[in-house]
């Protein structure tokens, strides 16, 4: 896939969208655009790809109301901006777009907050079927890292770089670029990919030499993973045929992190095929681990309980495994962090917990 071609296609798609508005005006129709409804109730499992994608329900942004008209006006301005950016081979961040709108000559087209501009980019991604990376839009910071026996080549703006993700990097690891499609995997001596939610746990694994000991690639998710992190995980799985496991805290929010790695997120379900790794499996912390290892816990807050109950109705979590775990957690009313494993000693996680769990799962 040539980047140049992608850009061309992206630009074309955007202009087409504008042309559609034009035709609507000219035909005496109210300008509008139709998008899939981006809610939990409108995502469904696609058995072909094994990921969750948007269902049939749609919402319409229409110039029928003042709000809708403002949205469409902003859309047209954004289209113009993106088309120009692609033309000039530049890129910008989502936050820059928000500030940049202030410079547009029309006050009505200014974004009122960054959520609005982010949402606009998502809307355009969906309607034009072009990813925002191809629009040359990137998030402010991703910062997620890799550490493990992987050699890769990255196409940077300053030329190609070949990097070994264990030998050529410091303790911080290799930083995943915004568009991981610029990376080519060269050589790997990896048995599995371990995605870790928190920085503390990632540092513990590295300090204890877990990546070396088990030939594992540690991916730091940094909380809810950025698209680039999910994309590279997907590619590692698909291209190098590696098993992927996810290691998080034992609370409802962490299950969602796992969910977005494995099944795709609700907000970017249009890209699930591109980003989700349905084969990724959950290591822990499981509610059953809390019982089994007698981990130090916190009681569930009301918001935790609501989140768990909401997950029970989330189509992505409607499997026997998750229903059992979530109901158990609601039952014991407790949650535990990854770091709580330290109650059994600093090495407990690398010497006992992970080997035991990975063995159970058949990864080791």
């Amino acid at each position, binding site marked *: 896939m040539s980047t140049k071609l992608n850009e061309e296609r992206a630009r074309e798609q955007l202009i087409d969208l504008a042309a559609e508005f034009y035709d609507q005006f000219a035909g005496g129709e109210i300008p509008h655009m139709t998008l899939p409804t981006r809610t939990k109730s409108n995502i469904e499992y696609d058995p072909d790809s094994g990921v969750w994608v948007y269902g049939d329900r749609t919402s319409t942004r229409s110039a029928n109301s*003042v709000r809708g008209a403002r949205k469409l006006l902003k859309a047209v301005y954004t289209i113009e901006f993106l088309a120009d950016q692609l033309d000039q081979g530049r890129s910008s961040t989502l936050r820059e777009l928000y500030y940049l709108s202030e410079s547009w000559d029309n006050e009505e087209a200014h974004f009122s907050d960054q959520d609005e501009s982010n949402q606009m980019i998502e809307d355009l991604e969906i309607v034009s079927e072009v990813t925002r990376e191809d629009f040359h839009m990137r998030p402010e910071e991703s910062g997620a890292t890799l550490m493990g026996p992987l050699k890769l080549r990255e196409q940077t703006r300053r030329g190609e770089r070949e990097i070994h993700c264990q030998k050529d990097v410091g303790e911080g690891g290799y930083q995943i670029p915004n568009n991981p499609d610029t990376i080519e995997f060269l050589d790997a001596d990896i048995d599995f990919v371990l995605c870790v939610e928190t920085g503390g746990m990632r540092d513990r694994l590295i300090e204890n030499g877990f990546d070396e000991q088990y030939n594992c690639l540690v991916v730091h998710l940094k909380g809810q993973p950025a698209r680039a992190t999910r994309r590279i995980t997907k590619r590692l799985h698909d291209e190098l045929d590696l098993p992927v496991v996810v290691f998080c805290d034992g609370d409802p929010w962490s299950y969602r992190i796992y969910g977005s790695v494995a099944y795709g997120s609700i907000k970017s379900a249009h890209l699930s095929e591109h980003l989700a790794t349905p084969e990724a499996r959950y290591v822990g912390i499981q509610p059953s681990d809390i019982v089994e290892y007698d981990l130090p816990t916190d009681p569930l807050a009301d918001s935790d309980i609501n989140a768990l109950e909401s997950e029970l109705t989330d189509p992505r979590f409607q499997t026997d495994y998750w229903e059992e775990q979530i109901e158990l957690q609601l039952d014991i009313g407790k949650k535990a962090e990854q770091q709580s494993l330290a109650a059994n000693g600093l090495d407990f996680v690398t010497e006992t917990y992970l080997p035991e769990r990975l063995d159970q799962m058949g990864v080791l």
Partner: protein
Amino acid sequence: MTSFQAELGADEGIAEELAKGQREISIAEFFEKNKHMLGFDSGARGLVTAVKEAVDNALDATEEAGIKPDIYVEITEVGDYYRVVVEDNGPGITKDQVPKIFGKLLYGSRFHAREQNRGQQGIGISAAVLYSQLTSGKPAKITSRTQESNQAEYFELIIDTDTNEPEIRDSEATTWDRTHGTRIELEMEANMRARQQLHQYIKNTAVVNPHARIELREPGLEEPLKFERGTDQLPAETSEIRPHPHGVELGTLIKMVAATESYSVSGFLQEEFTRVGKKTADKVLNSFRDRHFGRELAWPTPATGIDIADAVTKAVSNKGAEATETFAEQIESTLIGRDRTAYSELEELVDEIADDVEADTGRTFGATVRENAVAAAWGELTAFDDDEATNGEEPGRDHLTPGLYGLVDDATSSRKDDETVQALAERLARRADGLGDDGARRFRVTHDDLSALVEAAADATVEYDDVTLGETAREKITDTLWTAARTVPDEVPKITEIEGDRDTASELLEAMRATDILAPPTDCLSPITADLVEAGLRKEYDADFFAAATRDAEVHGGDPFIVEAGIAYGGELQSEGKIDLLRFANRVPLVYQQGACSSTDVVKQIGWRNYGLDQPGGSGLPNGPAVLMIHVASTNVPFTSESKDAIANIPEIEDEIELAIREAARELKSYLNKRRSLEKRQQKQSVLSQILPEMADKVAEVTGQERPNIDAAMGRIMNNLCIDREVDDDTVTLHVENYSDRAETPEITEIVSVEPTDVEGDGANVVDLDGEWFIQWSPSLSAGEETKLTYTVGDDAEFDITVEGVETEKLTLNA
């Protein structure tokens, strides 16, 4: 006083001493000391009150004569005093009446009439005369010319405060430029500090009297203030009504009884009161009988332990076996067939049977025989001997207890057990038996006595049988017994008897009040009517919206009344601060004491936010650019005081005021809602008409095309009616598209400078007007529908389109 009391014991002649100082006070004298009661408490207010009294009189006089009022008010400064002149074009006053009307307090034509009038007591104008003479020492100057007379009469008069009689200082025939009317001139100590109230009074008078022309001149005005007529329609003439039975008091009734020429109460009621015919009079009479005579308790015929036929047979002698038997058996069977029988009913029934038997057998049943038979049958029916059964003897016969048991049982529902009911019935029976001590044992009892009897029996039962009998249970028992008792057939007392007997009169009054009687007729009232309320407001206020409501007549204390309300909103009305509240009673503006008026209370407790007006705290007078007027018309408007400034708190009137206001306010609400929705639409349109062209420009720029035409899209968005013109050679086509969600019927007029031909389209119509042709269409388009209107003209034709019947906010015109 205290000093006199200290000497009480010492001087026996004190009463005589005091008597020297005691004398009659004339009414004029009284009011001289109590000016405030009539609204003359200060110079400022006195002036307003004097004008008000004179203008009220003028309006009443002209309306009564069917003349459109033309009233002139002038106030001038005369040295230290002010001179008030009020002129009208009324029918004038006859020469001998003038002094009494203006120079005698409490002289008037309206006090005794039940009819809606501005004045009521005949105090007002003479009080003004009195005030003027007291403060300036000058007589009142009256000029009056009646319609027939060819010259006017001029008087100068004062009131003799000792005797309350007019004293004519000067009188002469004079000429006057008015053909008929009355002019009064008063000089008084006053000031113009109440100028605002004076103007308010005159202006408000003009609002509620749109048929009147009023002119005001006063020193502070450069130009006279003129209020022109808003309608030629005079208020409906009112007719006087007789009092309503629910509206009289005992004193009035006694006076009426004394004055009536009727002989019977029934005649008196029908003659002297409104809404009383024969039927209603009978109802009142029965109710009166119940109160005067009491009712007779009625008894059932027991199934056992009784032999009426035998008793009657024994009581009748010398009538022959056959006739006696028939007579006795008929009485028995009739009684058995009846539910309950009272003494008077038995008398009547025995009479009938006796007459029948007489006719059949030829035997004569005289009065004595009949009396004996009644006594015998009654003795059986009401046998009462409460002796306990003693050894070997039958218990005494008691027919009263079973008779009462059924009623008590009915009244006490299932909650009381059988023993209690029985015990109570026995005690009632014993006490009822005591009623029979009047000799005939007719069991007559008034409601009060019956109630006392039940109380006593209940108290005893509570005390001895240890049960509870609450207030409600007792009342229910009394009511059940009262209902089962019979109204007696006795003749009611004649009018002459009632006249001298206060208690009987009071019984009659109670009976009148207790009887349901139709509300009084309302032709004695003259409401302004909703249309004219609105016209009056329209005339005096430059507002955007007007609404008015007139309620149906209701009654308070026997006096019918009608409440009307009107609202003006928006326009030039002041939008800061509270709304203006205008209060009127019988078409007279109430200018003072707004806070004490019950109409103000009602306005304050209405939730005005509900009707789209701002009301801080959710109660109190609302804020906003609105005028609210309330008019109460009645034969007797209840005021809080003689100065007639505030309407008293009468629940019936308050309810009606509230309903009238709410009726008008509902219209205001829907107007405001509509206005808000149009405002919103306008806002939307103005925002969109900015955004969409910009969007279209941008879209054109991005796609590198010409700017698209967005009118159709705009019209569709605004749910508008769009009209576009298309000219193709000689053919002009108007495309009418209805994008709204409801049917529209625009009236489209096209003015063309050349004669058009081939005009087509719904309801097309061409009119030639001096070389201009008016083409009119009135198409009807349902939601989403479109139509074409076409015609042909030569070149160089000019056209000019106008569209009516569609709000401008909803119209997109490209023609």
